[in-house]
């Protein structure tokens, strides 16, 4: 069962994960992995 009292920390760490994935996508993956203009 989910503990509703600490939803704030979950929000933060899920956002952190999303941000990290976003930057991996933007800086490395976007336009196809390994693509190098």
């Amino acid at each position, binding site marked *: 069962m989910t503990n509703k009292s600490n*939803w704030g920390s979950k929000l*933060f760490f899920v*956002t952190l994960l999303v941000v990290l994935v976003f930057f991996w996508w*933007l800086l490395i993956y976007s336009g196809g992995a390994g693509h190098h*203009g």
Partner: protein
Amino acid sequence: MNPLRYHPVRSIWRRLLPAVMVAAIGLSVGEFPSVAAAASQGAEQQVTSVGGDGVKNESRALSLPAPKPKRSDYPSIGTSSRAVVWIIAQMHLFFGALVLAVPIFVLVIELIGFKTDDDRYDDMAHEFMKVSLTAYAITALFGGTLALCLFLLYPDFMTYMTRVFGSQMLVYAVLFFLESLLLYIYYYGWNALRYGNRKWVHLTLGLLLNAVGTTLLVVANSWSTFMMAPSGIDPATGAVTGSIWEIMKGPLWNPLNLHRFIANIAFGGAVVGAYAAFKFLAAKTPAEKAHYDWMGYTSNFIAILAFLPLPFAGYWLMAEVYAYSQQMGILAMGGILAWLFVIQAVLICTILLAGNYYLWTGMARTEGGERYRWLIKYIAVVLVLGFLVWVTPHNIIYTGGEVARLGGGNHPVLGPLGIMPAKNIAVFLMLIFTFLSFQLYRRADKVITVAWQNWGNALMVAIYIVACANVIFAGVYYGYFTNTVYKVGSSVLQVASTAVVIVSGVVIDTLMFKGAKPLPVYWGKVSDRSQYALFALPVAFTWLMALMGYIRSSMRTHWHVYAVMKDNSPDNFIPPLQTVGNMVTAATLLFLVFVIFIFWIANLSDTKQVPPATDGKFVPAESAA
């Protein structure tokens, strides 16, 4: 025409882009009507020149070659357009670096404060943001002015850039709005979201603020790296051939992203350190002095910690520059621009000396610092010798008589110190010994109690000795007694040796500090002299950024976009070094004037006027109201 590339929405955006982008930036600086009118006119001209219906316009616009402006196509304003754009762009970059970097370490400090339940961290983080907030408005002002200057003074170049980057520039404008929104909520919501889950919401907002800020940084970086090493276009004509990802992801993009990201943090730390020093010197009470002493220490810690890995990012960037174009790399590090690397050496050594000096004086805060005082003179000797080797030029301009006396173009004794292997040895030893100062500072307020402390110390000393020997051996042997391939490769060994010292130092200390007995630290009991080291740091950092930014940009020589779009303006040459020195110094001084203004504004917001007296009697504020 390539039908796959046509997209109606993209077509509309491309037409509207210049107007929307400049209007968006103009709105933020209160210049909306005039900017929007000018930009709309520009957009119409672009559409007219393309002609026809939407589909044809789109493909034609993309397949158009890069413009070849004549000298007369550059508007004359009676002074050097390059000088105007140079100063404005540099100011925008300074302030941009500051406002993007400060929230990064503010978030970390806020998180530490929250997890340790120590309000001092939270208050300090909030105060750092106050400096950043004032700087943000100035960043936007210079950004708007820069966009105006570029569109007015380099219209063909900007037409080409907007054609190449298309709606990506609109994304930048949207991100700018998001950044503003999040920044204001983050700063003004600080006390409303202070405890429990609300604090986590505040931290999440800070995280999003940094994500948006860093995205802004990398988007803007793609414009700079495209100008240096264009991709996603036909190299012969400059016509767009690739997607926006191919254009953005040129060979220099990620090296520059990393270099600027780290450098911004070091720069931001140095500037807020100067703020703390300013407040420390102006403090009236011991409590205030203690607070700002601690704030200055934290800022210096951030600046130097971010500064230590910076040379590695710099090496990566320059390696990619060489890989892209040897000519460009040699111009930077072996041609006329190489002279400026000697100035770079002076500035970096100033940073290292100031940072180390601040740490040494800081050891006076605790009685435990006495134990390590004897080591300082040896560290100082290494730093000064490293400084001298690093600033030794390979050759200088001699008179005939001087060459005759020397017996050649190089000094017989000092000549070998002028090339990279000697400088690499100096740089890495200086970094290793700066880390030693850090390590001693961290140990100064503790008595280590673990049973294996002698073994731990012996291991640490052994690591230092082996690393220094490795740095010297790799530099001397591979640098002077083998061929060039090994010479370049030897720097990898030196980087690895330095990294081993830093990483193992942190790990060994972390384990040794378990159960350590803390010694009292007297915050505020530091000399005023040490605060001037905190002032020296941002001055040297600012100068360094202006100098190295100029070198990076100047590597394009007479090209707006390297080997694709020629610069035909009256300024299409590398200026004399004296001009460079004057321009870089002017930008630095101007920035420092603005920084003093920001400190004054931040101080002003804490100042309350005493209510006026009536009939010679003091009237409390409540009664006066």
